[in-house]
């Protein structure tokens, strides 16, 4: 283990030395310092950067996916217990407020309504929808 670590260090050092040993006035290529990606990813295809309503849609889709993953019986609603088992502590902590009807289960739409309400409370009427 120690030897491996040592070897890694030596390898890392020799890589750094090799890159430093440029010829002439060619500046050395810095080691892959933060932030950095491998060469093969430097031509990743352009993907649109969502903002505004499209971004909000992405964010909600992300939350909906976590909700669906927790909904093991796929009935479109979570009980407190289902939420707890899935690690959805946020749903557990706010269960009573999300389940305003007191039905013992919450749908994703309930969750969305609750999030919108809280957004309005926190950010005022100008809050993004």
């Amino acid at each position: 283990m120690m030897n491996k670590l040592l070897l890694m260090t030596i390898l890392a050092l020799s890589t750094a030395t090799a890159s430093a040993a440029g010829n002439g006035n060619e500046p050395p290529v810095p080691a892959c310092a933060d932030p950095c990606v491998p060469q093969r990813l430097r031509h990743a295809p352009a993907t649109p950067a969502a903002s505004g309503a499209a971004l909000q849609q992405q964010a909600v889709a992300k939350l909906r996916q976590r909700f669906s993953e927790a909904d093991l019986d796929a009935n479109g609603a979570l009980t407190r217990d289902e939420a707890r088992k899935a690690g959805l502590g946020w749903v557990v902590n706010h269960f009573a407020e999300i389940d305003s009807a007191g039905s013992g289960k919450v749908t994703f739409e309930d969750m969305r309504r609750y999030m919108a309400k809280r957004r309005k409370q926190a950010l005022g009427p100008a809050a993004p929808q």
Partner: protein
Amino acid sequence: MARPSPLTNTLRPPLLAVLLSSLLAACGGGGGGSGNSTTPPVVTPPVANDGSLNDPVIYSGNPTASLASATESAAIVKGTMVLNGQSIAYTSTTGHLTGTDARTGRAASFFYVAYTADGKEPGSRPVTFFYNGGPGSASMWLHLGSFAPKRIQSQVPSNVILGSVTPVDNAESLLDVSDLVFVDAVGTGYSQAVAPARNRDYWGVDADAAGFRDFVQRYVAANNRQQSPKVLFGESYGAPRTGIMASLLETAGTRVSGVVLHSAIMDYNSNCSVISTRSCEGYIPTYAATGNYYKLASPAPADVPSFLQEVRAYSATTYRDAVGRWLSSNTLPQPGVAQQLFRYTGVLASRWQTNLNYGPDAFAQELVPGQLLGRYDARVSGAPGSPVAADGDPSLTVVNGAFDSAIRTYLTGTLKYSAASTYVTFNNIIETWNFSHDGKEVPDTIPDLAAAINLNPSMKVLAQSGYHDLATPFYQTELDLQRLGANPNIVVRNYAGGHMIYLDDAARRAQKADLVQFYGSLGK
């Protein structure tokens, strides 16, 4: 042995730690690695009377390394410091906590150093989690450079290579407003996966953030910090990690009161030094700020903030249009565009005519003839071939060796923690890292931050960037965050500094002032 501090009481009595580690040792715990048959038997870590810990474990940053089991012991050292004329007694806790994924059971032993003010109710103070990025970097830069009780005095932006240094009391420590926890990513520092997981299982955008979530949850539970406002403070790659962590922690029911995005790269897809086919519009104001530093902007701006505002606007309109045509069809810009860019930045018009999407590597090499500018801080420069330019980034070279050696002596000498292996300050794992996230080859974490804000609309966001950082340009961070829409909880602050803003004394003071305001604004 009895320690009156609430921290020690809530953390765990040392005796229990000894018992616990004996039990775990009986299960054959210890440093392990792939195909490693020479793992030494674990000896119970002695928790000495002076609080020191000689951890017998050999930690490894190898991709396949895996601890057979993990103990949660720590060295505990008392200290005092004076901040704003007020004496603060504090405890430094240095050791490991095991972060375990509640659903999968996957676990890692995270190495951390916590500084907590003594005699306070645990829930009454914020607790802040700091980490660098890389990926592959230990958190030593933030730990020894920024807001911990002690810091290394650097001479940035001087190009003198810093010699051997000892950390000194830090007048800008954040200990007056928050308890501070510095934690290392798996495979860096002394953090390592626990069997059956291996280090490499954590080496991806999502796996890594989930591991950090598990550490934060474990720290909160072990130290009774449920009531404390929680702040995440990530630098560079640590910032996109923060976006994802915020979303994961909120989902899991751990409220995140605030996030500090330090020299952020929230969207790898928008940075033209990461992906060369993207517009460099996010960089033009950095070029202008740096050209102005070298007195190359013409005419010399009377007022720098309004100058940079003008350059931002130009970058987002005329330059964006022109570079779009250049990238899509190699259409040369109007001569006036190259001329204007020359006046703003000092980069010759002929260079803009040759490549309108002018990247930061060329800028660092060409702006000042005979000088290579630093990538992390373009104010630090050196002649190609000189020692300070030998590693390709003079601004990293001036501090790298000093930090590297100081962290090791500081851990053993001041914090009284030693392990049977060397602290891994940087692990070159870029090629192994899984960068994909949400269907993109490289991560865009603005949607994660948006999801976190959906779950907690009171979450405060503070982005801090350096005007002279050629790695994560400040204007690109502004553009990335603008995608979130108007939100009074999102604040952007920029400083005359580099990537590690805090290495500059004046910038660090300004950062501290803004951070104090930020902490004052936090909800629970």
